[in-house]
């Protein structure tokens, strides 16, 4: 009798073990799919850009030529456009984002905190096509009639603010990107500030610090996390496609003026891929995509490491 029970229990245990093992491996298979997917994306882009890589070599990144008719391709103008528009975006959105994050974590009353957090969430979820559309019909005309003439009349001696005020160009692209990355940087900075223990601020107040001095100390302690948030925002700006395509002007050139139309890596792919004729053109576009991927991969990995290490540090405290 006793023996039968133990045998029965053993059987149940064995069955349990088997089904548990099955379930664990089932979830593992789905999880591994993500890894396979990412590896496969890299592999495919690498293989499909082979033609272009073999013909142009490393010169591809440093060449300004982009001429589908003559089969001459180089990515420098697109790298430039992506880089400058993203830098403009960060220069505008970083101070604003930190300000909003400070407001949300340190200053705002609860009602406003919820309302503004909600609005910023929506801002992050609006499709980029809507930003781009709005950019064409509202932001670009506003830039042409108001912002650019103003910049010219006040700071016109700088080469970056010279030339024709057409509305579509690097500066407009940078501004629309700034609007788009602000919610991302704000959300993470707010969380990072919340992770700084209140006792530190109390200690600062106890030593006679003003409100700003206490906040400044929290900001300084959070700088690793804020840097991570910024880099993450940069990654988003670099990869943004539709909104930039619609306002950057889509002209492959490198000019000192920020008013001039330009072109970005993502926009050239969006504009030319579906109509590309000839293997070399497609292959070159995919190589532009490969560069874009590599850049965003490095930026995002760096950002994640910064944020991970920051959260680990504060959790340890």
């Amino acid at each position, binding site marked *: 009798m006793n023996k039968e029970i133990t045998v029965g229990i053993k059987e149940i245990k064995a069955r349990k073990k088997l089904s548990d093992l099955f*379930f*664990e491996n089932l*979830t*593992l298979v*789905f*999880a*591994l*799919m*993500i*890894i396979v*997917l*990412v590896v496969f*994306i890299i592999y*495919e882009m690498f293989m499909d850009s082979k033609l272009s890589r073999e013909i142009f070599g490393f010169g591809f990144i440093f060449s300004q030529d982009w001429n589908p008719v003559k089969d001459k391709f180089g990515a420098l103008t697109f790298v430039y456009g992506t880089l400058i528009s993203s830098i403009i975006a960060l220069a505008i959105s970083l101070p*604003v*984002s930190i*300000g*909003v994050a400070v*407001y*949300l974590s*340190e*200053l705002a009353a609860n009602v406003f905190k919820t309302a*503004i957090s909600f609005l*910023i*969430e929506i*801002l992050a*979820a*609006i*499709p980029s*096509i*809507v930003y*781009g*559309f*709005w950019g*064409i*019909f*509202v932001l670009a005309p506003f830039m042409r009639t108001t912002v650019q003439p103003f910049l010219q009349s006040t700071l016109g001696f700088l080469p970056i603010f010279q030339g024709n005020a057409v509305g579509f160009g690097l500066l407009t692209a940078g501004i629309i990107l700034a609007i788009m990355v602000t919610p991302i940087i704000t959300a993470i900075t707010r969380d990072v500030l919340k992770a700084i223990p209140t006792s530190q601020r109390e200690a600062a107040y106890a030593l006679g610090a*003003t*409100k*700003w*001095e206490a*906040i400044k100390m929290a900001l300084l302690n959070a700088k690793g996390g804020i840097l991570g948030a910024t880099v993450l925002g940069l*990654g*988003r700006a*670099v*990869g943004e*496609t*539709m909104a930039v395509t*619609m306002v950057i002007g889509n002209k492959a050139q490198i000019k000192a003026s920020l008013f001039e139309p330009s072109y970005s890596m*993502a926009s050239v792919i*969006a504009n030319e*891929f*579906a109509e590309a004729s000839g293997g070399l053109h497609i292959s070159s576009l995919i190589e532009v*995509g490969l560069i*874009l*991927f590599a850049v*965003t991969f490095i930026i*995002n*990995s760096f950002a*994640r490491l910064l944020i991970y290490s920051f959260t680990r540090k504060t959790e340890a405290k």
Partner: protein
Amino acid sequence: MEDYYLKVSKGHTDRRKLKSRLMIILCYVAAAMAILPLLYIFFYTTMQGASSLNIDFFTELPKPVGESGGGMANAILGTLILVALGSVIGIPVGIFAGIYITEYSKSIFANVIKFVTDVLSGIPSIIIGIFAYGLIVIPMKSFSAYAGGFALGVLMIPTITRITEEMLKLVPHSLREAALALGIPRWKTTLRIVLRTAQSGIITGVLLAIARAAGETAPLLFTSFGNSFWSTSLDSPMASIPVQIFNYAISPYDEWHSKAWAGAFVLISLVFIVSLIVRLATRNKFSQTA
């Protein structure tokens, strides 16, 4: 002598207080600056879109330039189909991967998968489009709804994985322990108890991923491409709201622009409603656990 020090330190304190007040005002200004464009975009799109939104928009095919009327019915249906295809891929992979990361977090894979999910979420959507193009469009020799749906599915995965992970983390450990102590196998505990507890959170996360996918344009440009006619066949090009907005937006015709505004209004409303649902659902979640 004492007076002198007092005077100096008073001036100093005043300056610090002034600076503090100034910086805090700047923070308020920043908050206003961040909200302003949102409200502007929101109201502008609503004004432009609501006025050109009518029944025809949801029931009629696009009309050629010059003919008034017409709508985006095929694009609306197309977006529904593409998002459904994407969900078939994105939801199971996302949820199961999320389960693996939280429930088997002790394995070495869990951290790797977490990192790779972050990588995937950082890949620009246009690159996912290139990937789907190489994987599906080239072998099939045609733009197709399959390719577009696949691209959307890949884009949905990281959002769903992360939301699942976060929601499962909120489920108290005691619940798992209680189930295991009753002799329920671990897989059943996960599916019937842990997952069910986190259900509402996960569903809202999935909704959010779907709303985002519905607004994606870049990965569809050269996968599902576009179509001016009714099409429900999955191996041929298919219209979608965002691509239609893009094509209309860069056209020079006012009629098309107003159609595009109507489309943009539909997308924004979708995002707004889903975000609102997510907010309300997660708020209930927190008050329940608290």
